[in-house]
Structures are given as structure tokens and as C-alpha cells.
């Protein structure tokens, strides 16, 4: 079983290298994070907070937008592409189970995202250290950001696999993936905000809203990172919310893991029913 999963995973990494996907993702992450680090560092001196910490706070917001997009763009082709090319027939007629196949894809794609995050955000951390803006506390913040961003990526990979196996056609899967990104990252927050305003401190704000934040990995990710940075005094907004929630910030991490597992189970269930 292990060699088969590894065969799928290593092929995905190879493809990511070959078609310059990994390079592109790294460049995008590096460019955006460097821009935020260098342009956004101006107020750090006056606030007297570690320059790396405030950069990580900005990068957490960047990750919320970029990482789900990268993950969904990697995932949409995973099953639909194999069906479209006819290679699904070959793969599923060989002695690999559907779950092993999905696991291999996930490990390969996860590795691609992790490498891009390490290189992209790592470069920014390196630049900050080189220019004398680094500290040990700042580096652990960076490490936490990279680790949780990778978790966020994995959750959206799993959601992308649902789209890929449910549509079975790469074009439709791609459109659905973009739709999922738009809803999860942009519209979900807008809807919550609207509901909060309309509810004005009623039952929704007290019981539904905290759970709604956990249900969306993008929100759970932001919640955890800003709470961990103690950044409510730095950036305000969403970060201030975490103090008023009925659960510790670590529950947000558990929620991301839960959504990831549920999405994997759903994708595997759909994949098992597919006749290639």
C-alpha cells in the first residue's frame, strides 16, 4: 500500500516541478509577502512591537486569500483530469484502491503547497532577519504561520477533491473550484457580517456566529493566528472577536482538522462510486 500511495504522491510532486506550478506558487507567495513585509513595516517602529510579528499578522490575512486558491487550483484536476485523459481507467484497473489514490494525490499536493510556503514565506523571514528586523519570537510566529497555512491548504485540497470527483470534468471542476473560493473566502464573511449587524447582539451573535467561524477553515485559520499573535491590539477587526468567543483559539485548529477529515471522507465516498 505504501509504495502505491508514494508512487502517486511523488508523481504529483514531479508534475508540480515540471509544469512550473511549484515555481509559480512560490513566486506569488514570495512577492506578496515581501511587499507586505517591506511596505507594511513602516508603523512597526512607532508601535514598539516586533517587526516580524506584525508582518506575520499581515501575512495571515494574505494566506486566507492565497492558500485556498492555490489548493483549489491544484485539486480540481486531481480526479476529473484523470477521467478526462483516460488514465483513470488505467490507474483503477491496477491494484490501487481509490482511497490510496486519493491519499497519494493529497500527500503530493500538500508537499507542493508546503514547499511553496516554506520557500515563499521563508524568503520574507530571511529578508527581515538580514535587515535586522528579526527575533526568536518573530521566527516562531513565522513557523506557526507556515504550519497553519499548510493545514489551511490541506483542508481546501480536500474540498477541491470533492469538486473534482463530483463533476468528473476538468472545466466544470475548475469553475466550481473558483466558486468555492469566492464563497469561502469573500462571500461567507460578508454574509456573517451582514447577519451580525441585522441581529444586533441576539441569539445569532451569541450561539450561531461562533460555530459559523469554525465551520469555514478560512475563518478558523484567521481566528487562530490572530489570537495566537495577541494581535487584537495590532490589527483589530476580526482579532478582537476571539476574546469574546466561548472556546479557546486551539478549538479553531481542531475545527480545521475536522472539516479536512470530513471533506476527505466525502471525496473518497464519491470517488468510490465513480465508473471511470
Amino acid at each position, binding site marked *: 500500500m505504501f*509504495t502505491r500511495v508514494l508512487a502517486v504522491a511523488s508523481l504529483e510532486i514531479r508534475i508540480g516541478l515540471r509544469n512550473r506550478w511549484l515555481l509559480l506558487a512560490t513566486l506569488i507567495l514570495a512577492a506578496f509577502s515581501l511587499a507586505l513585509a517591506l511596505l507594511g513595516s513602516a508603523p512597526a517602529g512607532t508601535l514598539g512591537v516586533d517587526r516580524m510579528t506584525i508582518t506575520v499578522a499581515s501575512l495571515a490575512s494574505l494566506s486566507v486569500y492565497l492558500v485556498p486558491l492555490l489548493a483549489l487550483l491544484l485539486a480540481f484536476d486531481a480526479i476529473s483530469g484523470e477521467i478526462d*485523459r483516460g488514465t483513470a481507467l*488505467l490507474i483503477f484497473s491496477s*491494484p490501487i484502491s481509490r482511497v490510496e489514490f486519493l491519499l497519494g494525490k493529497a500527500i503530493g499536493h500538500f508537499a507542493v503547497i508546503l514547499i511553496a510556503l516554506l520557500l515563499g514565506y521563508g524568503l520574507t523571514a530571511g529578508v527581515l532577519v538580514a535587515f535586522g528586523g528579526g527575533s526568536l519570537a518573530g521566527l516562531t510566529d513565522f513557523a506557526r504561520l507556515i504550519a497553519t497555512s499548510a493545514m489551511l491548504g490541506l483542508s481546501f485540497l480536500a474540498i477541491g477533491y470533492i469538486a473534482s470527483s463530483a463533476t468528473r470534468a476538468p472545466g466544470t471542476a475548475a469553475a466550481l473550484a473558483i466558486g468555492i473560493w469566492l464563497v469561502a473566502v469573500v462571500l461567507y464573511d460578508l454574509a456573517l457580517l451582514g447577519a451580525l449587524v441585522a441581529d444586533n447582539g441576539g441569539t445569532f451573535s451569541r450561539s450561531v456566529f461562533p460555530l459559523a467561524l469554525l465551520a469555514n477553515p478560512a475563518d478558523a485559520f484567521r481566528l487562530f493566528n490572530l489570537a495566537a499573535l495577541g494581535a487584537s491590539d495590532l490589527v483589530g477587526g476580526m482579532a478582537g472577536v476571539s476574546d469574546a468567543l466561548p472556546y479557546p483559539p486551539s478549538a479553531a485548529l481542531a475545527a480545521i482538522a475536522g472539516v479536512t477529515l470530513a471533506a476527505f471522507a466525502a471525496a473518497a465516498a464519491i470517488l468510490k462510486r465513480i465508473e471511470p
Partner: protein
Amino acid sequence: MTDSVLSIKNLTKRFGRQTAVDGVSFHIEPGERAALIGHNGAGKTTLIKSILGFLTPEEGSISVLGNEPGSNAARRSVAYLPEAVAFQKALTGVEILTFFSRLKGEDPKAVPGLLEKVGLSEAGRRRVGTYSKGMRQRLGLAQALIGEPSLVLLDEPTSGLDPVSRQDFYALVEEVAARGAAVLLSSHALSEVEAKTDRVLIMAHGKLVADDTLASLRRAARLPIRLRVQGAEVAADEIAQRLGGRRVNCRSVELFCDADEKLSHLAAISALGSLVEDVEVTLPSLDDVYRHFTGVDAKKES
């Protein structure tokens, strides 16, 4: 019967109200090369997908070396080449074969040998995107030969190949069968498989309408042989009178006969002596035989 590599009994598969495969039964023994012939939509691909375990039939049973289709034991002994497969263009031939070797639990060290066997040693390090159609098809066959399978299923493997590539392809199939593997290959034309297979299975409208050697099918079809006699001069009328054929133009006469009457007709023609300049004997073509088993039978039913 139990040593059959593939044994299918009374298989029926329906899609909604349409019956794609209708009560098909046959066995394939080790080392046998069988051709599955039928026009598009005759049920060939449905049958092959059922053998692979992708489709669950409504009735009947399939056994692959005594195992359920799609079970791990069956998958380990079956190799398959689908009709239209497009490998990742960015990968090389070596990478693709290494990947499938690892999926099948075979040693990737055998990959260079496989590439050499299908004549792709030179191209193995190049990206598949640069391959011609024939090369891609040979790469697909190399994939199907990984790990010496007992049953090789090839779905329309030679469609779109030039005659030379097709001959090379059948030479490989012969090698595989000589090693003891059973080969079932599908095609839409009988003329494509010719003498390259031991047995011909003809499907029409989901039913198996013929299952025999090509020579026996020819005999069973009892299609007439055409003799075209060319006279030395303007003698067609006289030749037609003496042989009892039909006059085509002022020099040639055409007549039809069964296979067992051929020699007596030829004797009669040679008895005409200098009146005859040339004789042309045309056996019924493979397409005629195919049409006999599919078209005519279908008309009888309706």
C-alpha cells in the same frame, strides 16, 4: 473449463432501458489471441469494462482466473489498454512506466527493457507531448506488458495506426500470447485483425453472433467466390454461353460459385483453351464475412 483465464457466462448489462450486453458467454484459454469485433456501440467497451470490474452486470457472471472481476487478485493478473488514453504530456515515457510499475508492485528496473521491446528506448527520456500517435500507443502497450499479466485486454489498440505500426503491434501481441498470456483485443473491423488472432468473436447489438476461427467463419458464411474470366478476343458471348456466367463487357464474363465448386469451375474455364486469356479469383472479403454475421442476421431478427 476451470483453467480458463477468462470465463463469461450469460452476461447482461443494461443502461436504463438500453441493453448494452445481452446474454454473452465465452471462455478464453491461456495463450489464446481472441479478437472481439463489432461496430461502434455494439457493446465491446461495456464488455471490457465489466471484465475489469468497473461495471456491475445485471445478470450472469465473470471470472478472471477464478476471481471476481475488480478484486485485487483479478486486478493483479489483468493488464488493460483503453481505447483513448492521453498520458500527462509533461512526463517522459520512463516516468510513466515507472509510475505504473510501482502501482502494480513490479520492479521499475524492468522499464528500460519494456521500452526497448516496443521500440521506444530512444524516446524514453523525452516528454510524451512530443510523441507521435503510434509512439503513444506503443507506450500504452508497454504499460500493459508490465509484470507479465495473464490476461491482456486491448480496446481498439490499432485504430489510427499505419499498416507498418499495426504489424509491429501484432508481432508484440503474438509474443505476449506465446508466453502464455490470453489476449482479448477489440476492433471495429474484421479486416484490421486478419490472421493475427486465433479466434474471432463478433458482437452485434450487445449479442455475441459468432465465435470461431476466421477460416470456419468464412466457411459458415458460405459467401460465393467470384470468378472473372477475360477472353482472348471479343469472345464474351461465347464464354458466357459455355460457362453459364454473366457477360460484363465484350471481353469479360463474371460468375459466382460456392467454395466447393471452385475447382470444377476452374477446370471448365481451362477447358476453353485459347479462348481465355486470364482468370481472376476473388474470395469474399473479411468485410463481407463481417456483414454477413452482423447486418444480415440483424435484418432477419427485425
